[in-house]
């Protein structure tokens, strides 16, 4: 089959989003069913693309409208993009099912549209090979995210959304200025072409441009202290949307940071920027974990924990070594699975018991045994206990960190992990060893998804070999820029 069909990954959600108003009249069920159908289709396409990329070992380059790069815009679906587009699609599919139960606020047609646009934006950010196109997709993601944050129509949601808009807006404007600077210096927006020219850019322009771009992306990637919007937004957003934020929206931002960082590794002042990122990432972990310690609300607690984990991924990506990047990608995959599970189950408890305050988790082991078991698995995995998936990626990140000479950073991250262990311990204890109310019937579909994710956690934890091979390839895709340039046909205009 022609690789160009991969453009459906972008086209499908976009077109489907515009069709939502047409089926609005058929009622809430129809809209939600439509959402499930589209995401299932997207999953199938993404599965085919991933299979194609991993079996041939070659990236799929989609050339839009026949305009060849660097003149036209191209999509670059390499090992990394193929993997993450699949993850995005699968998580979206699960969340479409969860939305049946979790989203009751009208207007659901708007919800469905925004949902699809959010998925589209993140997919596009990861798949694109053009830096301005990246900005466009980032804006699509961000704007649908702002709207979805406010979707619950409560005062808190509106406030959270407002904060997100202000900070996200500032971030993306600086990103755009950075892109403009780089464009002015090189005359190109194609990422492969930029990478070729990176060494030749005027050092000042390169530094300022790159710094502004990273600064802009850091807001989306939730780096301290640019992540202040995140806890509020995570808590206020509808539960399925929180899962999507944590599982892939933030990953798209992280990916963009990683990709652009390594594309510009020839630029002046690059290592200084890496060091700054390492510091910010370490601070992100520490501040987030400490903030989670005394949370009274489980969803917010896990939101902070998610930020902490994201900080660890950023740390790995900023190490500037192959080992670090591969470990970071591994952690991205694991974190997507674990946090999807945690936000899903915690959100489900919120739906079933009318809130996610810690008190609602008392005796959950007896009230909703399946949900409690899966939350426990997610918690233990996050803490980094052997036989769960995060253990492997976490030790790889920390080993890579010490190898790259950041022992102090690793020590601080480990210290923060102790704190993380404590608050998850409290949650687990509350669920299993405190008395609570009566038994509640658990939803079948959500249970199946939760068990699937929990099983995935344990399977990867017990047998990480295959996933490790896959993420290593994805990590190389990100780290090995020479390959990236080689794979994009630049019509000979490159240096």
């Amino acid at each position: 089959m022609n690789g160009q069909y991969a453009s459906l990954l972008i086209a499908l959600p976009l077109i489907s989003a515009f069709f939502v108003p047409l089926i609005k009249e058929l009622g809430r069920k129809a809209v939600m069913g439509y959402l499930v159908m589209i995401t299932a289709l997207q999953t199938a396409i993404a599965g085919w693309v991933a299979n194609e990329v991993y079996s041939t070992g070659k990236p799929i380059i989609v050339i839009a409208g026949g305009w060849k790069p660097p003149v036209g815009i191209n999509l670059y679906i390499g090992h990394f993009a193929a993997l993450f587009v699949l993850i995005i699609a699968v998580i979206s599919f699960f969340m479409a099912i969860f939305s049946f139960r979790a989203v009751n606020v009208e207007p659901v047609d708007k919800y469905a549209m925004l949902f699809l646009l959010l998925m589209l934006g993140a997919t596009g950010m990861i798949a694109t090979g053009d830096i301005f196109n990246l900005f466009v997709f980032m804006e699509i993601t961000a704007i649908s995210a702002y709207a979805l944050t406010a979707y619950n129509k409560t005062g808190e949601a509106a406030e959270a959304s407002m904060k997100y808009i202000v900070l996200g807006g500032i971030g993306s404007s600086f990103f755009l200025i950075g892109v403009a600077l780089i464009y002015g210096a090189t005359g190109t927006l194609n990422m492969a072409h930029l990478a070729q020219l990176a060494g030749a850019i005027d050092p000042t322009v390169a530094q300022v441009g790159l710094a502004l771009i990273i600064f802009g992306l850091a807001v989306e990637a939730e780096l301290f202290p640019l992540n202040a919007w995140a806890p509020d937004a995570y808590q206020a957003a509808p539960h399925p949307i929180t899962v999507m934020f944590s599982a892939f929206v933030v990953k798209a931002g992280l990916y963009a940071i990683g990709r652009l960082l390594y594309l510009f590794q020839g630029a002046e002042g690059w290592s200084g920027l890496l060091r700054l990122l390492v510091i910010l990432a370490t601070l992100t972990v520490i501040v987030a974990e400490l903030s989670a310690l005394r949370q009274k609300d489980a969803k917010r607690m896990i939101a902070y924990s998610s930020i902490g984990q994201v900080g660890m991924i950023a740390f790995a990506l900023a190490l500037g070594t192959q080992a670090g990047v591969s470990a970071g990608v591994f952690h991205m995959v694991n974190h997507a699975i674990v946090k999807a599970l945690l936000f899903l189950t915690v959100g489900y408890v919120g739906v079933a018991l009318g809130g996610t305050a810690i008190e609602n988790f008392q005796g959950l082991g007896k009230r909703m045994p399946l949900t409690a078991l899966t939350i426990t698995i997610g918690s233990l995995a996050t803490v980094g206990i052997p036989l769960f998936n995060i253990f492997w990626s976490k030790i790889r990140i920390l080993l890579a960190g010490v190898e790259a000479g950041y022992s102090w950073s690793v020590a601080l991250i480990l210290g923060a992990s102790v704190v993380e262990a404590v608050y998850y311990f409290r949650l687990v204890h509350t669920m299993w060893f405190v008395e609570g109310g009566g038994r509640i019937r658990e939803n079948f579909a959500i249970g199946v998804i939760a068990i699937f994710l929990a099983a995935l956690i344990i399977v990867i934890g017990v047998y990480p070999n295959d996933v490790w091979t896959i993420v290593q390839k994805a990590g190389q895709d990100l780290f090995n820029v020479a390959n990236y340039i080689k794979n994009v046909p630049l019509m000979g205009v490159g240096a």
Partner: protein
Amino acid sequence: MNELLIIIFAPLLGGVLAWALNVRGIRELLGVAGAAVPLAYLVKLYSELDASGQLSHSIDFAGFTFSFSLTHLTWVFAMIAGVVGLASTIAMVSTSRDGYEWLFALMSLTGAYGVFLSFDLLGFFIFWELMTVGSFMMVLKYSRSAGLKYFVLSVVGAFAMFLAIAKIYALSGSFAFPDVANAVYYAMGRGDLALVFGLFLVAFGVKAGMFPLHVWAPDAYSETNQSYTAMFSGVLSKTGVYGFILIYMLIGYRLMVEFGAFRSAPKFGYIIAFLGGLTIIVGGLLAALQEDIRKLFAYSSISQIGYILVAFGVGTSLSIEAGIYHAISHALFKGLFFLIVATIIYRTGKTTFADMGGLAEKMPFTFAMAFVAILSLAGIPPMAGFVSKWLIFEAVISQNLPILGGMVFFGSAIGFVYLIRFTYAVWFGQRPTDLDDTKDAPLPLAVAMAILAIPNIVFGIAPGLVVKELNKIFGGEIVTSPTLWELNLGFGRYNGLLILVWLIVGLLIAAVIYFLGAPVRKVPVTDTYQSGNPVTMEYNLTIRRNFFLPLKEALAFWLRISFDKLYRDIGAWVEDFAEVMRNYVYNGNVQSYAWYLALILLILAMWGV
């Protein structure tokens, strides 16, 4: 499948099956089988090991190479896990009621086997974590605060170890022990070396219960199924002890070269030994002041581990051999003690001295077991505890280390102090009426106790058995053993059989005197404290309540200094700090958030951009 892997994973498999099926009868069978299979394999592999000196196996997994190795050293430690683990699981047949306990008890046993048999640092770390999780789950079920304390300290220890491992890995690019030892010897800087040593000291110190990291142990040991505590104290604490041997194996030479010696011990060893000595004293004194038998033995276990640390710290072959001998006898008598406690609790449901008394008549078998354990812990011949303590004394004294020697002797004295209380208050004296129909140990507990009691006696009378094995670790005659019964150090000798004979003769003579002697006089129970003299103090002390109150008052000043409290304060301080910080950083004001962005831009500008 490789036999070493079977040894490691059999308990976990048994535990998972027991948990999954959770049918009474089958559950117990699977659990005990999970503990018995590794022991059988260890016995079976012995002849092979003896012929080749080392059995190794390595697998590639998750992009790392994991190696496992059975050597004479690891065989000895694995056997400790095997015997005590089996006894403990058999006892659990009586005291454990659900699949949860079987799963996690056996998970921790798998962890312990893995720690002993791993021949690379990463595998060591992973199994260490597995063991910690299993034991933590066992504590969590019984007490939140004890669990939390154990968990936090363990996690701190584990992360310290991980940092050290990462440091070493960054240097050597490999986790395998031989590569690590090489890399450390040739390439590690002085600062890093000291750092790695400090981190290992914390990591292993936590698990072994070394002062001042011991604070988790009294609570964790007492707040769980006491049958499991036999394994907890007998096996799991030995992984920490084994860790100290690893320090010698991996970084010991380099530490010795780099930092030199203090008196006749290596300087780093002296730190271990001195902390071990403090552990003996603190553990012993606190054990004497406990009113709960579980706590008494928990502190006593800590105190006894101190001996092993002293022995290891001295750093001669003799002292390390003595330390390993004491690790064996500690596992045997401490495991036995906790099984006795388990039996007492199982039959009476009581845990404090105040509620006990006169049980010797009602539980003669358990009492006989307790008698063996008491003699062994107190270091009275002909028990295993005597031989190992004697070896430690000799090793310390022969190196001319008077301070350590004093600490060790003090520990023995304080050992008598707390044991006399257990001996009298539980087994003799007036029996509370509600204990009148107490029965003796149920069969599984009785079998389990016997499994541990027999080697306690055998290894005391025939120390040659053990010493022959331990000499193989060092590949030389560290302690010569002319016959099975005799030990000869050159400057001291011990003959277990001879002592046994004399002991029996002495007992016979005593019996003769007793029966020919003065008529028996009845004394009230309250009189025992003053040995029959009139009570002169205002307060009335009985052996069951506040027996060592004067000691407590004498120590009042020192008892106020509590590391437990210090750690709690640090914890509370971190929580408060976290809250304050969160309130300032995530203050909910979007204007200040925007300022953060400006601040970062400023930093970017100053960074030279």
